[in-house]
């Protein structure tokens, strides 16, 4: 169920926020990570802003 949720979100370009937090804590502990909302908007812009990968 958890995996289905992750899959459906990634289908529309939203990677898991928890993985991002884990990455930031491990690699850049001194940097303040983006909030959940900022992260969402950042990914939204990244997916669609540059012309989304969509097929015919």
């Amino acid at each position, binding site marked *: 169920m958890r*995996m289905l*949720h*992750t*899959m*459906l*979100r*990634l*289908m*529309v*370009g*939203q*990677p*898991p926020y928890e*993985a*991002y*937090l*884990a*990455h*930031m804590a491990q*690699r850049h502990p001194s940097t303040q990570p983006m909030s*959940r*909302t900022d*992260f*969402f*908007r*950042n*990914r*939204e*812009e*990244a*997916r*669609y*802003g*540059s*012309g*989304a*990968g*969509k*097929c*015919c």
Partner: protein
Amino acid sequence: MNRHIPWIFLAIVGASCLAVLATSRGEAVNALWIVCASVSCFLVAYRYYALYIACHVIQLDPNRATPAIYRSDGLDYVPTDRRVLFGHHFAAIAGAGPLVGPVLAAQMGYLPGTLWILCGVVLAGAVQDFMVLFISMRRDGKSLGELVRLEMGALAGTIALAGAFLIMVIILAVLALIVVRALAESPWGMFTVTATIPLALAMGVYTRWIRPGRIGEVSVLGLIGLIAAIFFGQNVAASEVWGPIFIFTPQTLCWILIGYGALASVLPVWLLLAPRDYLSTFLKIGAITALAIGIVVMAPPLRMPALTQFVGGGGPAWSGALFPFLFITIACGAVSGFHALIASGTTPKLIAAETDAPFIGYGAMLMEAFVAIMALVGASILDPGIYFAMNSPAAVLGNDPVSAAHAVTAMGFPISADTLVQTARDVGEHTIISRTGGAPTLAVAMAEIFSHVAGGTAMKAFWYHFAILFEALFILTAVDAGTRAGRFMLQDLIGLAVPSFRAGTSWVPGIVATGICVASWGFFLYQGVTDPLGGVNTLWPVFGISNQMLAAIALMLATAVLFRMKRQRSAWVTVIPTVWLLICTLTAGSLKLLSSDPSVGFLTHAAKFASALDRGEVVAPAKSVADMQAIVFNDRIDAGLCAVFLAVVLSLLFFTIRTCLAALHDPAPSVNESPKQMVPTE
């Protein structure tokens, strides 16, 4: 040996199903034979061929870190569970293409299309997706244009990028044309699709300010809105006041779409594009799943013959004989060059281990082929009379049920005018005659299947409009997203000559590039809409040729990479599909350009109308001198486009051969892979 036994059994099951399909003539064959044959074929191909490529041809290394590991940033580069990534990749590659192509191909009967999808995907399509994913994964997740540039030189890269842009233009035009054909003169369909715009805007506001990031919630609310719009649309269409407001001629609809495309692609993404993408993505996955379940539950018999008389050419939905035109009509589903852009997009940045690549690259494409098989089954369970009444141009059928029934019966598919009228009434439309483009045909088939499982005949009209909405929704998303992607491609291309034109410097180049992009696809859309033969006839083959040429380019890149890796002994894996695609596309391209049959060759068709024009005659289906001039002009543009595609693919063939020969003389591997890094040990 024991581990092979289940697979041998599966192979025998698949072969038996195919044998039933191939030998049955004249009696009703159940659709499940096709489904069963395909599934067995795909599983065996995945287990053996994909594994062979992974272990022996490219030698995937489980200890080699992928970009998601060594570049991990929690954003673009995230090591992702392979099942999750499979869903992501499949959602990105599956679009309208695999649904439309097989429906059009059904005019030759179900057998040729089925065999091409099965062979095409196993030997060409899935190999292409998998190889491009592998190549990109070993090079930091670079895009196709960059990969061609890296391995075959700057000029080859630029030509590939320009070719990709032209293909994008044709794809957008043909997709928009399908929407026009499905929504013209259909107030119910038009209302529901129009209703998605305020719905998406409301969803956009919701995810922006009210509950940011709650995609699940907002999608459920959106879905409720969509269903309400479909139900309500029936009343709107029936209303004497509101109904006529939503009736548009194809020409008006064409201008509305062009205006929509221009506007939508400059709006902020969160407002319209993102929320509608949620709806279309989830609806697409849901509808495909439901279709698969529906076909298995209903187990419908195939009513289309295995082969029709149009195998030799002269079919009403598209012209030309089986070879080479079947192989470009079913592009997506068997092999789709466009996937090379996706497989070198976000997926290679998310893949957690090299050994996941066969499952994602090869596996997701098999899944798409299965979607194509379902579309083919859908078209083949309809009464062939209905199929040909929907897919023949109005110039052949005339405009009323009696003339259409007469024309279709004369083709050898007996149907009564009453049946045509009743079918239209069942699905809640005024008419189903000459509703070309594939989408309405598939919608009738989906209505047939879904209403069998849920709701009965009373729900047919609902399911028909549900299917139209689902197709229109993701085509509109593709038009919008594709215009943006085309804009960036164009800015990159022009930026090569005029560096200040690149993205990020000012907003002017963005607007200019968007304008050029919309004007380009708008031109072909308008040409298709005003084409007296219905447009799909002309544009779909051009789209097919261009898409298969992109596939050939991707496979040529893969071949060049194999030679540069010094694995030329295994390069037959990509050389065989490349050669086949080159044969098909070069033959089809030159026939479209030069054939002396005016229904196939653009230049002959232009010459026929130009000489009539010189004599001052007006030849049907044109109705005026202006029509005649438009036909001649459009034919010459299309011929020019085919010539450009031929030039692109031939020049890349030249670069590939040059790269391969140079690699043969080189004693050591010369690929430009990113330096090997090991997977960090825990």
